[in-house]
């Protein structure tokens, strides 16, 4: 049967396109405009060319913040993706325990970001916090407001608590979508549990894992509220992530030009890394089919 090529269906996405244009493209264009000008308030702008970009690119504080951010995102992915897959594998597949597990896991996802930050700020406090105080009673010198390492542990633990459930839910739905025939065939072939995981479950999870990696990377790379509430970027600059630095520039110092140049570089980095992830994971899928 000959397919009739007809692209008129594209008109159906016109409303979404207009919405995205309004909410994303126009602000992005404004940011590009701001990034080449100096603002004096009251709508007075002076064209400065590439000055802000040169400033931002040679700013040591930003290099540090970028490395910190990459370290944080890498750590978050390294912990949350394997942990999420493991928990999803361990979850029951039928019976009353399924909704109980799903609801318990979904709870952290429902908590607003600033509340997550407040919860952990209290939880980790040495004087009254359950975690901080317990650790001190056990003789561990834990203090996330003074020790950079402890601040990092707190922020990473918080993100793991907050977002691993998302990976679990995605993986769980992926696992449930595998037809039983695959498992039956594996049992007939006498495949071990690890063989079933590596040759059936993991390849079948590729789609949801792509989404999980992309979502977790983007969210952790742009994380702001939770570390801002818990540590405020400190101690020193230890947890001063990119968006905290950026907000400081744009809102507190009102340096719109440098902040805009910074935003564009930030945006380009996110775009590049997402594109690399997306391409890599979708290409692996195509290689299998051949």
């Amino acid at each position, binding site marked *: 049967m000959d397919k009739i090529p007809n692209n008129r269906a594209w008109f159906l996405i016109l409303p979404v396109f207009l919405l995205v244009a309004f909410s994303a493209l126009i602000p992005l*264009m*404004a940011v*590009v*405009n*701001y990034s080449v000008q100096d603002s004096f308030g009251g709508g007075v702008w002076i064209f400065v060319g590439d000055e802000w*970009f*040169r400033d931002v690119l040679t700013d040591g504080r930003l290099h540090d913040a970028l490395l910190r951010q990459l370290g944080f995102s890498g750590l978050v992915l390294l912990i949350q993706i394997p942990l999420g897959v493991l928990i999803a594998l361990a979850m029951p597949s039928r019976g009353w325990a399924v909704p109980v597990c799903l609801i318990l896991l979904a709870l952290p996802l429902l908590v607003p970001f600033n509340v997550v930050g407040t919860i952990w700020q209290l939880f980790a406090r040495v004087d009254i916090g359950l975690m901080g105080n317990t650790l001190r009673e056990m003789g561990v010198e834990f203090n996330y407001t003074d020790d950079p390492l402890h601040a990092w542990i707190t922020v990473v633990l918080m993100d793991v608590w907050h977002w691993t459930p998302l990976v679990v839910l995605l993986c769980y739905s992926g696992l449930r979508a595998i037809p039983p025939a695959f498992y039956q065939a594996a049992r007939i072939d006498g495949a071990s549990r690890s063989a079933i995981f590596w040759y059936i479950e993991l390849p079948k999870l590729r789609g949801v894992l792509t989404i999980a990696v992309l979502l977790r990377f983007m969210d952790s790379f742009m994380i702001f509220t939770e570390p801002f509430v818990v540590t405020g970027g400190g101690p020193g600059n230890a947890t001063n992530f990119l968006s905290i630095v950026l907000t400081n520039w744009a809102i507190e110092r009102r340096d719109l030009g440098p902040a805009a140049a910074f935003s564009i570089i930030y945006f*380009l980095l996110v775009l590049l890394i997402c594109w690399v992830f997306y391409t890599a994971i979708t290409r692996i899928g195509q290689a299998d089919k051949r």
Partner: protein
Amino acid sequence: MESGTLADWLEHSFGWMAWTWVTGTFFLTILGLLVVMTVWELAMPTVQRKGFLPISTTRGDRFFIGLLSSAFIHLAWLGLVGAGLTWALAICAAWMVVLLRYG
């Protein structure tokens, strides 16, 4: 509406965006390139193929890779060399042609 309405309306609606000739030209160029790519696609549909890039790509893929890498070439020029983006632009134009033809 009063006289000079279009200019007033533009200023009222888009003044906050702080347009400059440079950025305006930039976006119009990107838009123009997208239109050219669309017309090219309609006249001669792309074929996915493998060039010097490690992945097989369509023309649109190579165009996107070209735009994104051009942005990073500009940034690298500013960070490593400094002022004088004309040379970076020339490099990017050449890079785009090479990428679309042999990528």
